[in-house]
């Protein structure tokens, strides 16, 4: 049990760093720590990830409110409302409200996925159904990007073509490797994702030139909570549902809750609204829990960082089933709540100290992450395929491509690379089931 506490605590610590430092999102954090995460059990890994995402939401709002910077993408509404509240001298109250809302949102998220798992007990997908579901998720990711449709479809086709390299058609014998043995192991998504998503995110991070606004305020904690109860409830429900949207997850949760709250407070709304920021940040955390459901239930990662976690769960032999999800939630919910309570206390009481870890200049950070990712991609390539240098070269090329095309979103490409082998398995197995394909000879 203590292992789970340690993993959760570590996840929370990483989440604090990722939440505070722009450019170090969930994806960068999981990619950098990949080699270490390989040692964790599936349950510990899920706890680590969940606590990391939750803590990042708490501290993402701290930098948003005090510095007017979004530590992670889901905090943009918090930047608009929170920084304005700081300017009004209500920063501390905002931190408290977002923290308490986030805590309730986490609890709601846990309850929500337990409920979904319970109702999903009888769902078993056939190969074709699984394939269709994967395709829907893959195609829906196009909605997340600003790419032209031609670019999106080209990236998807490229990913499907690359997924065929080393594919065995369920026969174990690798195919399509063109007599180059280093291709027979297939192309692992990790070096591509590390370059096209992680490094791109890191390179695009801007330096911190914002003015820090920290004030001391007096307010009644209970009264404020009661006053904002409906915003918290709305945020929980909207965040719980919207968190399951592929590619958008917590970003969608927070933005939808923000829009809904603006609508509710339409008549009295002015920039720097405590109801809006409370609901938004509550939704963030509810979404950070509910986004786990498609991953744990069907093995469908719906965000970049989840894809990394999924690959780790897969090598550990994790079984996707509602039973496992329900077991995980019912047996370990209190650890999540304890860690969240801890993160909440830190965020409320020591927020002003944590903003100090936000670097003024990101150059050292960028170089450090690049060097670490070089190591990690080499290790991952060696560990999974026996070709570390090939993996490293893929990472370097991907970083170059990501840097050369900063406006192109590679999320659909990476997602298809992650699920490519499963998609192909489901497709060819489905054909076999219907007697249309006899397998490779």
């Amino acid at each position, binding site marked *: 049990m203590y292992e789970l506490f340690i993993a959760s605590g570590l996840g929370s610590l990483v989440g604090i760093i990722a939440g505070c430092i722009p450019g170090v999102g969930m994806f960068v954090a999981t990619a950098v720590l990949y080699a270490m995460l390989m*040692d964790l059990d599936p349950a510990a890994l899920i706890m680590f990830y969940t606590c990391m995402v939750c803590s990042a939401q708490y501290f993402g709002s701290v930098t948003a409110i005090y510095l007017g910077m979004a530590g992670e993408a889901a905090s943009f509404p918090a930047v608009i409302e929170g920084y304005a509240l700081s300017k009004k001298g209500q920063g501390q109250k905002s931190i408290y409200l977002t923290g308490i809302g986030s805590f309730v949102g986490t609890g709601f998220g846990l309850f929500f996925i337990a409920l979904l798992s319970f109702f999903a007990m009888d769902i078993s997908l056939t190969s074709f159904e699984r394939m269709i579901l994967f395709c829907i998720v893959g195609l829906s990711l196009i909605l997340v990007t600003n790419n032209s449709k031609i670019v999106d479809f080209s990236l998807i086709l490229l990913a499907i073509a690359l997924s065929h390299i080393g594919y065995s058609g*369920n026969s174990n014998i690798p195919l399509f490797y063109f007599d180059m043995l280093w291709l027979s192991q297939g192309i692992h998504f990790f070096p591509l994702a590390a370059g096209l998503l992680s490094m791109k995110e890191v390179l695009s991070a801007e330096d911190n030139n914002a003015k820090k606004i920290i004030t001391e305020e007096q307010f009644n904690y209970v009264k404020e909570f009661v006053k904002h109860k409906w915003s918290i409830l709305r945020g929980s429900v909207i965040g719980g549902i919207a968190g399951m949207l592929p590619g958008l997850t917590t970003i969608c949760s927070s933005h939808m809750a923000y829009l809904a709250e603006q609508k509710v407070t339409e008549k009295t709304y002015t920039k720097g609204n405590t109801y809006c920021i409370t609901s938004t940040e509550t939704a963030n955390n509810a979404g950070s829990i509910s986004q786990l459901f498609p991953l744990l239930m069907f093995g469908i990662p719906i965000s970049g960082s989840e894809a990394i976690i999924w690959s780790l769960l897969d090598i550990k032999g994790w079984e996707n089933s509602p039973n496992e999800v329900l077991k995980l939630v019912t047996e370990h919910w209190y650890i999540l709540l304890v860690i969240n309570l801890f993160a909440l206390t830190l965020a409320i009481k020591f927020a002003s100290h944590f903003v100090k870890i936000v670097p003024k200049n990101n150059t050292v950070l960028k170089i450090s992450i690049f060097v670490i990712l070089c190591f990690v991609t080499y290790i991952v390539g060696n560990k999974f395929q026996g070709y570390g240098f090939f993996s490293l070269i893929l990472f370097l090329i991907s970083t170059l491509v990501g840097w050369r095309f900063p406006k192109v979103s590679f999320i659909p490409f990476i997602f298809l690379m992650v699920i490519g082998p499963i998609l192909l398995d489901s497709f060819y197995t489905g054909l076999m089931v219907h007697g249309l394909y006899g397998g490779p000879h």
Partner: protein
Amino acid sequence: MRNILFALVAVLFSTKVFAETIPMIVTGSTGGGINAFAQLMAKDSEAGKYGNIKLDPIVPGSACKGFAVVGKQAKGSTFLTHYENYYQLVSKLKNNPACPYVSFEGAAPIVSKVGGLYLVVKTNGKGDNISNNGLTLSDFKNKKLKIGYSGSSTVEKEWHNQMNSKWGSDHIMVGYNGSSKMRAGMASEEVDAVWTSYRHFLRLMKVKKEYAILLKTVDQNKVSKSTPTLGDYLGDPKLTRAWLSTWYVFNDKNGIAKTIASSMKSDMAANTGNIGAYANKKKLVLEFDAETQTNMEKSYGWDQY
């Protein structure tokens, strides 16, 4: 604070990257029994069960990919990998550079097990009494069914065709990419029956108690004595198949195989450790004697029946 955090990450990173471990190459799918066993061995090694021996599982995702990684190990380096009579035959038959044949000559065996295959069907949710619901053995003669396997190589195809000719049927073979995907296929009812291990039968039953075993390939104490064996039922002992699964140490310089084997043996007797608890729960019959294991390799070939 920033410096402390940076130092913490650096320490965690370097302890992992530069840790001394022995690679344990998993030559099977990620969701199968080989990987499950490997992960538990790694956990036991981490807990200090094998003294200073720390195992680091490498999971390329399939047997052939695993064989390729074995082939890339430095000459004379110590590592663990897995032998299975079925995959030995697949790689031998294909003679493909992307699926190299690995010779286990001179490697030291740690632990072996022989596992039968079981023909599992659904029983329409009325418990495991198969006499009056779900598929029966006579349905395999009268109906065209879809039968799932954990792979779709020539080896399974040949076995499937042999059974089809004995049954006088034209069942469709559905070869999955690993046992866990086959289990998901059975759960979704896209196939009517599967040939699988007892472990996967138990996992199906864990989700819903709706499955039953109609046939077994070898007579082990896992299912009722009254369940017929395939060879007896179809009158051809050559149809019998069984998995022989052994973990080996290559270039065992310090008695690694013996240390791990004796620790596993005592764990199994005391029902302690991850492997001990797993083996007892799954009713595994494990063999730890090196000589007996080497002889088993000679007598249990997928193609020798």
